[in-house]
């Protein structure tokens, strides 16, 4: 799957980051370079840790999450003809103004909502056709981190992270504890300190991290994040961003991240989808985005 021949022409695999960085220079297109330099200057701090960004795991061409001409209306149309592909190992960031339907897209992927038309495909399964019970099973391939973390407030941190394990695995109590500790350590929390705490006793950033630990407890192939960094200070935002990248790098998960934090989007995204006025107005790499001539895209970036 990941042979160079296979990947020819696709904006993808191992060397992808390198290529992406050099591409414009080789072509010697001054406008592009200016845009890149500008971006570099603006995000100098992030690019220092650039290894992380460039060091991407191999991305296969196999689509694992796909929206195919999806339309959805509540009392008014929210999404029209929205198409989106995340290939295995990619990190897709969905950006856009408030109320444009970003969370709705995640809910469609989770089949918490069904589209009026178009198809949603996750790991080869067309979600339109599956029953509620089948959807419960398919959802186990996905870990979702909610905007407000959505931890079960009547359960301790330990019980929250252990919950999906108790539900869906045959692990013994000891194995569950080991796994919970491992996940909490992965998100940089001290298991001994937080395990017995209740969600109400945690700070916003800690809640988000417990949310991530719970989402990844059963080692899903896909992680979905709804505004993982909103409402957090810049430092914690950096920590969470790095965490999402670590998950992608070390565990090779595919991520779909909803965020209007363009800084962290540029840091972690393989591709950015910009949602505006019911449509995807841009879908491409961060570099393509800075290079875009589109007024709206430029305005959106200008608002950084």
């Amino acid at each position, binding site marked *: 799957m990941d042979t160079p021949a296979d990947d020819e022409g696709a904006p993808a695999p191992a060397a992808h980051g390198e290529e992406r960085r050099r591409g414009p220079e080789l072509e010697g297109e001054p406008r592009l370079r200016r845009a890149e330099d500008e971006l570099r200057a603006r995000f100098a701090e992030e690019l220092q840790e650039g290894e992380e960004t460039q060091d991407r795991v191999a991305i296969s061409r196999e689509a694992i999450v796909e929206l195919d001409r999806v339309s959805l209306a509540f009392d008014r149309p929210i999404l029209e003809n929205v198409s989106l592909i995340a290939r295995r190992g990619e990190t897709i960031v969905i950006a856009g103004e408030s109320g444009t339907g970003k969370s709705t897209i995640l809910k469609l992927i*989770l089949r918490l909502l069904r589209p009026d038309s178009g198809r949603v495909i996750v790991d080869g399964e067309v979600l339109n056709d599956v029953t*509620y019970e089948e959807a*419960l099973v398919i*959802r186990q391939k996905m870990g979702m981190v*909610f905007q*407000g973390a*959505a931890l079960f407030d009547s359960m301790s941190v330990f019980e929250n992270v252990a*919950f*999906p394990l108790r539900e869906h695995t045959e692990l013994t109590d000891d194995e569950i504890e080991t796994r919970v500790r491992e996940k909490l350590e992965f998100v940089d929390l001290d298991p001994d300190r937080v395990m017995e705490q209740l969600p109400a006793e945690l700070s916003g950033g800690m809640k988000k991290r417990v949310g991530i630990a*719970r989402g990844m407890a059963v080692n899903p192939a896909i992680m979905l994040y709804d505004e993982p960094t909103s409402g957090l200070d810049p430092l914690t935002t950096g920590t969470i961003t790095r965490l999402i990248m670590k998950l992608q790098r070390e565990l090779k998960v595919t991520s779909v991240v909803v965020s209007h934090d363009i800084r962290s989007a540029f840091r972690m995204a393989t591709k950015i989808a910009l949602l505006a006025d019911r449509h995807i107005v841009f879908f491409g790499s961060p570099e393509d985005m800075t290079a875009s001539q589109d007024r709206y895209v430029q305005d959106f970036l200008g608002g950084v």
Partner: protein
Amino acid sequence: MAGFLASINEGAKRRVLAVQEYFGLAAKAIRFIVARPFYIGDVVQQMDAIGVESLGIVLLTGFFTGMVLALQTSVQMAQFGATMYIGRLVTASMVRELGPVLAAILVAGRVGSGIAAQIGSMRVTEQIDALNTLGVDPIKKLVTPRLIAALVMMPVLTILSDTVGIGGGNVIATAYVGIPVGLYWRTVWEQIASGGFILHYIPSDFVQGLVKPFVFGGIIAITGCFFGINTKGGTEGVGNATTRTVVVASVLILVVDYFLTQVLLFLFG
């Protein structure tokens, strides 16, 4: 005019859909009672919340209801010189009607609203979505344990309420009217026996008195869960859900009580 009719039509359609959804929820919750996995911890916790926490108010109101029943009947009976039948009247009213209905309405206020508030706040903080996302049916995890707990605890609370109520009647009958304790309880037993027995041993009054709280318990749990799950619009929505639960559950209890009574009278006389 057309717009007005259309909006009435819309409203009616929404009602019908809501009723359909209500019964759908009830049916699913009932089906899950016998399906694995069983959330026994949740059931026990809910029994504690429903039973133990409502015990105080149910006993208190039961006691005073028994006393006021005795007081009222003693005045009426005195006109016919039949005050020795106070026990029979208090028992008949408590066991068949007032015990179940009063306890249920109190529990609807105390527990039904609590269920709606808890599940409603889980809805608005996306915890219900989180359950779904983690591959767990919220009805199974949240509704069924509350339903089981209510189905079990409501009859228990009602028996206690009945007993305390009849005891309250005893206090008044003895203190005000001067009926000896022994006589009072003999008339209580006469009343219970007069309804006949099912399977030789179980007084049919008891059966009637326990079918009702069982049904009421179901109404309370399902109504609370229904409005909780359908909560919309943040914390304000949670407030609405609790209010509606109390109103709808209380009305349903009183309406269903009438029809149940008809059915039970038809069956047991």
